[in-house]
Each structure stands twice: as C-alpha cells, then as structure tokens.
C-alpha cells in the first residue's frame, strides 16, 4: 500500500513541467488505448463467437456516450504515437536530446502535431454522431 502511495506521490509531486506532463500523458493515453484494445479484440471476436452479441455491442458503440469515448480514444492513439516516436527517436538516435530545453520544446511540438491530426478527425466523428443520432445535416 505504501508503494502505491510513494509512486503516486512521485507521479504527481514531481514538478518537471512539459517533460513530466508528457510522461504522465503517455502513460494515461497508453493505458486508455490498451484498455480499449482488449475490449475491441473481444468485441470483434464476437463475430465468430456470438454474431448476435456483436450487433448489440455495435449498437452500444453507436450511442453518443461511446462516440465521445471514441473521440477521446483517437486523441490517445495520436498523442501516444507521436510522443512514442519522439521517445524512440531520442533514445535510439539522439540521446543528447534528453535535456530539459529540448524536452520542453519537443513536447510542445508533439502536442501541436497531435491537435493537427486530432481536430479534423474529431470534426468528422462529431459530424457522424450528429447525423446518425440527432438527424442533423440531412441525417
């Protein structure tokens, strides 16, 4: 129990600004993605195990609540991917870049790149929800 407290205090108490936030976001987005990945493997497996169950799950995914979750998932995947690429590039090719200055700058670039990918995707997914669930835009 004390380990849990020590680790969580370390996660939140450390004040490393951008690099710290990138670390926390990488963990949160990674855990969020893997949680959905497990659910997604099982729901797709239903096409073989229980086709009727698959249709029920899809109906659930089409609700507005899950639509918002889907938009969040897309953010998680884009951020985790770009930040992961940054980590891989630094670790494998440019270890000298692990300095506070580069960390801060590269984290900001990572966030901007994530938003550039995520915002247009969000527009189309939100539009889909409004068309199919609320009959807007000629749905």
């Amino acid at each position: 129990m004390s380990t849990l407290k020590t680790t969580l205090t370390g996660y939140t108490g450390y004040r490393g600004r951008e690099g710290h936030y990138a670390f926390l976001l990488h963990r949160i987005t990674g855990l969020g993605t893997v949680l959905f990945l497990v659910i997604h493997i099982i729901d797709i497996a239903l096409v073989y195990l229980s086709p009727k169950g698959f249709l029920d799950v899809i109906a659930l995914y089409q609700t507005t609540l899950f639509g918002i979750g889907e938009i969040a998932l897309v953010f998680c995947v884009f951020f985790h991917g770009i930040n992961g690429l940054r980590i891989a590039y630094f670790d494998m090719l440019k270890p000298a870049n692990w300095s506070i200055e580069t960390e801060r700058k590269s984290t900001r670039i990572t966030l901007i790149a994530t938003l550039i990918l995520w915002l247009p995707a969000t527009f189309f997914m939100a539009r889909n929800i409004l068309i199919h669930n609320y009959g807007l835009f000629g749905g």
Partner: protein
Amino acid sequence: MTATSEQIRRVKVRPNYDHIAWKWMRYSAVLLIPLVWFHLILQDVIVGVHAMDLDYVAQRWANIGWRVYDALLLGFAMAHGMNGVRQVANDFIKGERARTIMSWALFIFWLAITAIGAAALIGGVRQDFPLN
C-alpha cells in the same frame, strides 16, 4: 589515484530480457504508427461506427490481405500494450516475487486475449442465424 584517464572505456553488456523488451517497445512503435493510424482513420473517421455490421466485417475479411493486416495489428498492438502495462505495473509493484507473479499473469492474459482474437480472425463471421 591522482591522474585521470581521458580514454573512454567501452563495455559490451549482454542484453537481458528487459533490455530486449525496451528495444522492442521502440521498434514495434515505429511499425504500429502506420498500422494503427491507418486502421483508426479508415474505420473510425472515414467509414464510421454507424456503418459497421456483420456484412461489413465479412466483406472486409473476404480479402486475405485485410486478415493479414488485422493479424499484424493483433500481434503487435497487444504485445506492445501488455508490455506497457507491465512497465507501469513495475512502478507500483516492488517485490521480486510479486513482479514475477504479475509478469506471468500478464503473459497468460496476453496469450488468452490473443488466442480469442486469432480464433475470430481464422474462423471469420459466423452467419448461421437469420440476419434481420
């Protein structure tokens, strides 16, 4: 010891399991970006969840290329994800014994979920009931 040597000593360390896992996370990540992003943009943004049904999956899996694509996703994404969970859990679990148990539990979980996914990929859509 008064003099200091400027010579850099290079040591070759034989990679252990965690070293290999550390590299694996980075290599698989580079592969997962095109695989997962394309999957996500196609299925969630372009096609959309409102167009999903059994016919869609059946038609998609009629093409062996998509089954291979999904098999790659299943294999790489799940292994990358489970190793990630192991790394996060290592932050919270400190005991040697507890870590071993956690690693094995995650390995069995990974094997089970991957097997379920693989069964569906091989079996395909079972439309043995009247649709609609």
